[in-house]
Each structure stands twice: as structure tokens, then as C-alpha cells.
């Protein structure tokens, strides 16, 4: 990863400097109003090195990730363009990657995407022409070899910082670190993980990752986020694909009076951040606070992330 030419991505610069990185996720509007995007981004921008624009996550339609990213670059924020394989075929995706770079988008997060059945329009056609690893490799090929999949030349530079997702919390567990190795080989330079609520499981995953030396080849940002209430946690646990919340956390929320559950959810989040920050090979956190984005600032402050000096290196190199 460090061999590649600089993508001019601010996120990449932060990660390279060894500073603990913070990214977050923007709640995509159901409007055609750019102000909605700016407003949602403003809450996050002060604390974040990158703002993810989700690509119809959960297969629910919102403003497209590409457009949100374009709007963010206009106001000087650093977007992370999530691009999923669910809705577009290889022709559309390769074109979008060029367009994204042209609009100043530097960070690309390549994901498979939730199935259409998870969303509110389950009758839609699932595309999945690529899988996430094929998408990564194609993006890397476009950037490094400057060709489309067809072999046709791309006539300009394509400065991109390539990312992928990882979910260490679902089976087959032993495969997950190997899948990471595959994603790194395919071109991933940074990773944002699924929500981490099971720190022990994550520690075991990171042990395997370090055994393979992958933590030195890719920047890993741990996905975290505050649970709004016991009910919300229960919904995420049962209805949103890929999110695992251990019983202890569910119990902790359940025992908390309703009016204090949001506060407790935030406390759990800050505790998890403090724990994962100590794990060797972690480069940052990715805070997903869906519909409670205003909490991100508090979480950053309360978990002590404002002092983001490199742990292992001396500052000022």
C-alpha cells in the first residue's frame, strides 16, 4: 500500500502520518436539496478525516452516494464514496469511478452491498455483476494500469485511495482474516469494518490479521456506533444483515431505564472505542451513528480521540 503514488486523499495523508483516523457516515437525505447534505456533513466534518456516503445501504433508496460525494467536494469536505455491486453492472461502475475522480472524490469504498430483499423495494432486480473483490481489482487496474477491463486505455491519471469493508463478526470466522488477505491482494489500502460490539471476537480476528502481517499492508478502521435504545438495538440485530450484538450489551441496555438508554448506548460506544484503540494494528475508527449524527462529536470527545497523536511513533515526523 505504501508503495503506491499519493492519491491526494486527505484520509490517506492522515493514515500515513500515523495519526489515529476518524471517519463517519452521513445520513443520506430523501430530498433533492443540497443544503440537506451540507447540513448533515457539517455536524461531522469538524471531527472526521473522511465522511462516508452510503450507496443505498440496506437496499433503501436515498440520494445517491456519488452525488452526495460530489456535493461534499464542492464545500471542501473529504468524502468516502461507497460503491456497491447491487445496483450497477461493470460498465456503469467503471464509468462512475472515472466520474468520481473527475469530481475530486479520492476515496473509494468497494462493497458487495445488501441484497434488495433487505430494503423497501424488494422487487427490484439485483445486479451483482461484480463482487466486491472484483470491483476492487478493477478499480486498481484502472488506476495502476490505466485501462478499462476491456483493455481500452484511460487517458488521464486516476488518483484514488481504495478501500473495502470487512465483517469479522459473522461465519465462517476463520475465513474472515483470509478474506482480508484476499482484499488486500485485490487492491484494498484501507478497511472499514462492520459495527464492532464483540471486542473479544475482534481481538481474535486481529491476532490472525497480525499473524499474516496484514496490519502492515492495510489501514484498518474499526466500525463503531452508538445504539439508540434497546428497541433500536434489537431491530439492528434481527433485521439488518451482518450486525452482531452480544447478549451482554443487549442486557445492559434492557436494564437501563428507557429515557437513559441513548446515553448508555453512547457510553458503550466510547468504551468500545477505548478498547479497540489499544489493539495493535488499528489505524482508526469509523463511527456510524445513523440518525444520531449529533452524537459523533460527543463520542469523539468522550473517548479521548481528540488527542490523536500516533501511539507508536513520535509526533512530528
Amino acid at each position, binding site marked *: 500500500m505504501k508503495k503506491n503514488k499519493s492519491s491526494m486523499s486527505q484520509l490517506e495523508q492522515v493514515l500515513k502520518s500515523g495519526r489515529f483516523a476518524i471517519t463517519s457516515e452521513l445520513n443520506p437525505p430523501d430530498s433533492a436539496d443540497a443544503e440537506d447534505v451540507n447540513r448533515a456533513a457539517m455536524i461531522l466534518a469538524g471531527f472526521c478525516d473522511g465522511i462516508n456516503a452510503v450507496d443505498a445501504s440496506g437496499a433503501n433508496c436515498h440520494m445517491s452516494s456519488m452525488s452526495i460525494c460530489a456535493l461534499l467536494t464542492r464545500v471542501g469536505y473529504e468524502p468516502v464514496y461507497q460503491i456497491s455491486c447491487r445496483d450497477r453492472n461493470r460498465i456503469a461502475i467503471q464509468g462512475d469511478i472515472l466520474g468520481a475522480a473527475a469530481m475530486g472524490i479520492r476515496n473509494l469504498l468497494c462493497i458487495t452491498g445488501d441484497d434488495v430483499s433487505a430494503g423497501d423495494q424488494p422487487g427490484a432486480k439485483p445486479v451483482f*455483476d461484480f463482487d466486491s473483490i472484483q470491483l476492487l481489482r478493477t478499480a486498481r487496474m484502472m488506476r495502476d494500469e490505466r485501462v478499462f477491463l476491456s483493455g481500452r486505455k484511460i487517458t488521464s491519471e486516476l488518483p484514488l485511495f481504495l478501500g473495502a469493508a470487512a465483517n469479522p463478526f*459473522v461465519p465462517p470466522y476463520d475465513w474472515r482474516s483470509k478474506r482480508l488477505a484476499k482484499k488486500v491482494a485485490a487492491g484494498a489500502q484501507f478497511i472499514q469494518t462492520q459495527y464492532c460490539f464483540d471486542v473479544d471476537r475482534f481481538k481474535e480476528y486481529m491476532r490472525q490479521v497480525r*499473524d499474516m502481517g496484514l496490519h502492515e499492508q492495510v489501514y484498518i478502521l474499526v466500525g463503531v456506533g452508538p445504539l439508540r435504545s434497546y428497541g433500536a438495538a434489537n431491530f439492528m440485530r434481527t433485521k439488518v444483515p451482518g450486525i452482531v450484538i452480544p447478549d451482554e450489551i443487549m442486557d445492559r441496555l434492557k436494564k437501563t431505564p428507557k429515557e437513559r438508554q441513548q446515553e448508555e448506548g453512547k457510553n458503550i460506544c466510547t468504551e468500545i472505542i477505548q478498547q479497540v484503540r489499544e489493539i495493535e494494528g488499528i489505524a482508526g475508527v469509523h463511527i456510524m451513528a445513523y440518525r444520531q449524527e449529533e452524537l459523533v462529536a460527543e463520542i469523539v470527545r468522550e473517548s479521548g480521540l481528540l488527542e490523536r497523536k500516533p501511539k507508536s511513533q513520535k509526533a512530528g515526523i
Partner: protein
Amino acid sequence: MLLEWIYDLTHALLKPFKRILKPNSFAEKAMIAIEKVGKEVVFDCQMCGQCILHSTGMVCSMNCPKNLRNGPCGGVRLNGHCEVKPEQTCVWVKIYEGSLASPKYGGEMMWIQPPVNRKLQDSSSWVNLLHGIDQKMKTVWQTQDEKDALEPIFRGSNEKE
């Protein structure tokens, strides 16, 4: 693994007939019929025409509702079942188990499989394999060196357990 052995045997048996088994020939039509019957019964083959069964633990990856060729998505349920079809075991959970049980080709699960060539749907995988049509691309997708470097990772972290 028996299926690996059958795969090798079939490959060896068909190789001498490469000249007869041409794309779009009558022989290919016959092969399609044989593959449809044989592979559909045993593997629930989807006739993608670019079979990678031996690289995926002898389990057909095209039965994954997302058509994934490079591993499971992040939506696998805690019981190992599919995000899209909760009643069935995740195809890739089966592939991982199958690959672990495949001493010869199991490591190929680490290969970066290229995008599916949708034009080959319903054609004969064996014919395409013999003529190199299934792997044909206009760009270098993955070098043999990279495949060789990735394969050992598959067994690596398991031995420690």
C-alpha cells in the same frame, strides 16, 4: 477428496478430445447435455459456462444469490445461513468447509476470480476450459505468481489451531 480425483480424471479423459470438443459444435451440444444432467444433479449447477468448482471446494458458487465468486459477503447469519435465503446454509460456508477438505485444490479459494463472462451462460464449461475460453480476458487479471503467493495463506492460520 474423491471429487477432486473425479475432476482430475474427467480432465485427463477429455483432454485428448480437445479437437472434437470445439465451441459451437455438435460435440459441444452433447457436452452441454451431459453437464446439465450430471452437474445439475450433483452440484445444482447453474451452467455459467466457466466452472470453478474445484477452486471452490466442489460447491457451486453460482448458487450464492449474489453470485459471489470470491468469498462470502458480510451478511452471513450467526447460524451460518444465507442473508437472502435464511432457510439455506450460506453457499460460501459450505465452500470454505469443502475447500478445507480439499488437499489439492483447496488453496485456490484464495485466487482472485475474475468477473463472470455472462456470454458463456449455458455453454459447456469443459469445452471452454479445454480451449481456454473461460479464462480469456483482455487484461492481466491475476498472474500465476500472485496465485502461488496467495494459496499458502489458506492453510496458514488453520494449522495453529
